[in-house]
Each structure stands twice: as structure tokens, then as C-alpha cells.
């Protein structure tokens, strides 16, 4: 349980018999409170019954002797010494001359602080004396280790599947239908058609006569536009000529006699 080398375990008085040993430990204390606690321990009484006056005397003696030995003392030890000297003189005064807070209160406060520090120091010693992992008890040297593999189980259903497919189709289908529902005559087919029909005669023909006779109104509009462009194209190539008597009058077209029109119908 106890470890002799733990500095806070306060071994029996025998191991620190004289005050000369005390001076050798200068620097072993963590501040004046620590030194005071050590001195209080040497009174071998419960910290609650400690004689503060005796403690003050011991502290002042210690500081004096350290000074005589020309040991370097940290400032806070000297501050504590001054404060304790004041406390001592105040405690020796008659009660009615005491100020507030009374020296008794100051002494009590010091005593309470020493009790608290003492309690924690002992607690620390007991804590370190417990069965510690890696010193007193040991864990398994080479545990196999646990592993949890997370696995996702996916879930869906037939309705979602078909619905998703329907949505894909609905999203992409319109492009197909719009084209199919809008009949058009392409420029290429109009060119072919107009050129072929021009090959039949040298007479003027109205452009309306080139349109497919049984076509739907939509197709007729498309055919008219395409045939018009086709007529312009043939005129540009020098294979046909166009005439129109007035604005919005019927547009007429005729094969050019000396053109290469013969080949057009072939």
C-alpha cells in the first residue's frame, strides 16, 4: 500500500528527528503553507488542536536560522513570516484592543487552510497507494479486440421501383412526342419534290400546286414554307425562275429552258 519514497507520506517522526535536517530540505517545500503544514505535523497533534502560537514561533525560528545560514529564501516565505509575526503580537495583546478581524479569526483561518491542505495531502497519498493499473494490476496483454462492422441493409419496394421508372420516362418522353406530333416537310424533301415536279413542264406553275394534296393543315404550312425556300434555292442555282405580279399575289415558278433543268428530274 504505502510507498516509502512518496514524499507526502510523512513517515514517523524518527526519520526527521532534528531541526537541522529541516534546513537541508529547503526547497523541498512548495511555499510557506507547505512548510507550515510540515511544522504543524511535528507537533504530533490533530491539526484541529494545533497551537498556532507554537507554530508561529517554529516558523519564525526557521526563517531566522535560514537567514543566519545565508540561505536564499523566496519572497513569499518572508511575507508569511511578517504576517505571522504580526499575528503573534496581535494574539498577545489584550482582547479589547484587538481590531477586526480579530487575531483569533486570522488564526482560525490559517488553521482551516492547514487542515484542508493536510487532508488533500493524505488523500493524495492514499490515492497513489491504490492498486494502479500497470503497477499493481494488469490488463490483458494482447486482447484480440472487438470489431463492429456496420452493414447497411437497403430497403425498397416494387411500387417505388415502378414509380421511379415512370418518373424517368415522364421526364424524358415529351421530347419524343412533340416531334412526332408536328409533321414537317424538310428542306431536302421539298427540294427533291419541287425539282421533280419542275422537270415535267416548262410552263409557269403556282407554288401552291407543289404541295401534297391530301396533307393535314399543319403539314401544308410546313410544306409551303419548305417549298418556298426550295424555290428560292433552285432560282439561286439558276435552274428555275420566279415571278410574282404584286405583293401577296400568287408566286409562280418555271424551269429555265437553257438551264441544266433536264437533269433535275432524273
Amino acid at each position, binding site marked *: 500500500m504505502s510507498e516509502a519514497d512518496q514524499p507526502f507520506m510523512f513517515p514517523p517522526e524518527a526519520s526527521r528527528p532534528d531541526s537541522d535536517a529541516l534546513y537541508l530540505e529547503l526547497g523541498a517545500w512548495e511555499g510557506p503553507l507547505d512548510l507550515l503544514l510540515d511544522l504543524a505535523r511535528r507537533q504530533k497533534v490533530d491539526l484541529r488542536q494545533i497551537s498556532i502560537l507554537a507554530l508561529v514561533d517554529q516558523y519564525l525560528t526557521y526563517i531566522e536560522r535560514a537567514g543566519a545560514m545565508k540561505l536564499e529564501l523566496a519572497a513569499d516565505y518572508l511575507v508569511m513570516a511578517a504576517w505571522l509575526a504580526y499575528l503573534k503580537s496581535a494574539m498577545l495583546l489584550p482582547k479589547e484592543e484587538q481590531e477586526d478581524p480579530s487575531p483569533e479569526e486570522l488564526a482560525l483561518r490559517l488553521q482551516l487552510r492547514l487542515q484542508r491542505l493536510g487532508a488533500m495531502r493524505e488523500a493524495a497519498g492514499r490515492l497513489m497507494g491504490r492498486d494502479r493499473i500497470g503497477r499493481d494490476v*494488469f*490488463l*490483458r*496483454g*494482447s486482447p*484480440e*479486440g*472487438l*470489431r*463492429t*462492422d*456496420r*452493414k*447497411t*441493409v*437497403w*430497403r*425498397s*419496394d*416494387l411500387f*417505388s*421501383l*415502378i414509380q*421511379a*421508372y*415512370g*418518373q*424517368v*420516362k415522364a*421526364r*424524358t*418522353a415529351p*421530347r*419524343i412526342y412533340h*416531334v*412526332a406530333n408536328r*409533321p*414537317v*416537310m*424538310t428542306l431536302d*424533301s421539298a427540294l427533291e419534290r419541287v425539282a421533280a415536279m419542275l422537270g415535267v413542264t416548262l410552263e409557269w406553275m403556282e407554288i401552291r400546286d407543289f404541295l*401534297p394534296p391530301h*396533307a*393535314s393543315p399543319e*403539314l401544308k404550312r*410546313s*410544306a409551303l414554307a419548305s417549298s418556298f425556300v426550295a424555290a428560292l434555292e433552285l432560282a439561286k442555282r439558276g435552274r428555275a425562275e420566279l415571278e410574282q405580279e404584286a405583293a401577296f399575289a400568287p408566286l409562280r415558278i418555271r424551269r429555265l429552258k437553257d438551264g441544266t433543268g433536264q437533269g433535275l428530274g432524273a
Partner: protein
Amino acid sequence: MSEAEPDPLERAIEATLFAAEAPMTVDALAAHLGDAAPGDVRAALATLTARYGPRGVHLVERGGRWHFETAPDLAHLLRREKEQVRRLSRAATEVLAIIAYHEPVSRAEIESIRGVQTSAGTLDVLMEAGWVKPAGRREVPGRPVIYATTPEFLDHFGLASRRDLSGIDELRAAGLLDPVDEAMEAAMRFDPDEPDEAESDDEDPS
């Protein structure tokens, strides 16, 4: 619980093998335990082996070295699988539907049907779910991988076969199962003299 007073050597061996970082030979154990005779160690190991026999942890010898290990029938405890049920995302459902209706299909074909890019993770999810698998490569430039559904797919969706995918016949009759490009082309090829005649059905996409 157990017997009144365990043998000190047994306890020492238990603790030593438990804390050891590697299996130990009888000699190493005897040396470690100070003045133990190898014969005594051997006897104690035999007792301990029998003692741990029915337990969740066994004392075993492997190649002359002794150690504790988990009972073989409990090995599954060391690597547990935790299942987490998740609903398939909409994008993944769409891709799955396209594969189911059109299989085998390449990723490019899936994308052309969906009209959007398919993230790499989506196909992974479907393969992780076990519903889709690679089914070879299409013999076209680039040799893209093509995908098809699995028997687990039919299982999960309660289908006897892909023909049971409801609506597939109706969808096909409506021309909805043809690749978009083909349908477009067919529409463009439209003959101005006979606008009402639908394009011929030269390929069965299923």
C-alpha cells in the same frame, strides 16, 4: 461459486498468461514464476485447461506455447456485424429501375435514359445491396461494363421474374422502353407523305 481455495500456482499462471503480451512456453512460465518446477506448471496448466474448458475463454497450447483465447464458438463476438436498414434514395431507385427494365445496360446508357449523370456511389449502393451486378462488357468501342439485376433483386421485390415487372408490356407498347436517341431518330425520319405511320419496331430492348 468455484472451489474454496484455488491453488496459488494456478492463480499465478492465470495472471501471468492473462497479462502476457505473447504466448509463453512452460519453461518461460516456470522461470517467470521463480521457483516453480516445470512439472508443477504443466500439471497446473492441465487443471486450468480443463477448468476453462466450458467457459467463454479457453486456455490453449499452440506449438508449445500457452495463452488464453476466446472460445472458438464465440469467435463471432469478436467481429460483430451491425445491420442498419436504410431506404434506397430516389436516384438509386431510378437507376435500379432502369437496369431492371433494360438490362444489361452500361452506365452511359443509364445516363442517357435518366437524362442526368449518375454518381459513382449510386451503382456501388445497388451492388452493395446485392441487387445489381456487373454482367460483362458491351462489345463496342471503350468496352463499357454492363449491369444486370440479381436473383436477390427479384427476391427483395417479390418478383418471380423480370417479366413480372408490372407495366413492362404497356410501357413497351407505348414505345417507352426504346433508348431516347433511337426514338428521336425515328421521329426525325418521319415521312412527310405518311405522317401517321409509326416507326417500325426493330429492336426488343428487354
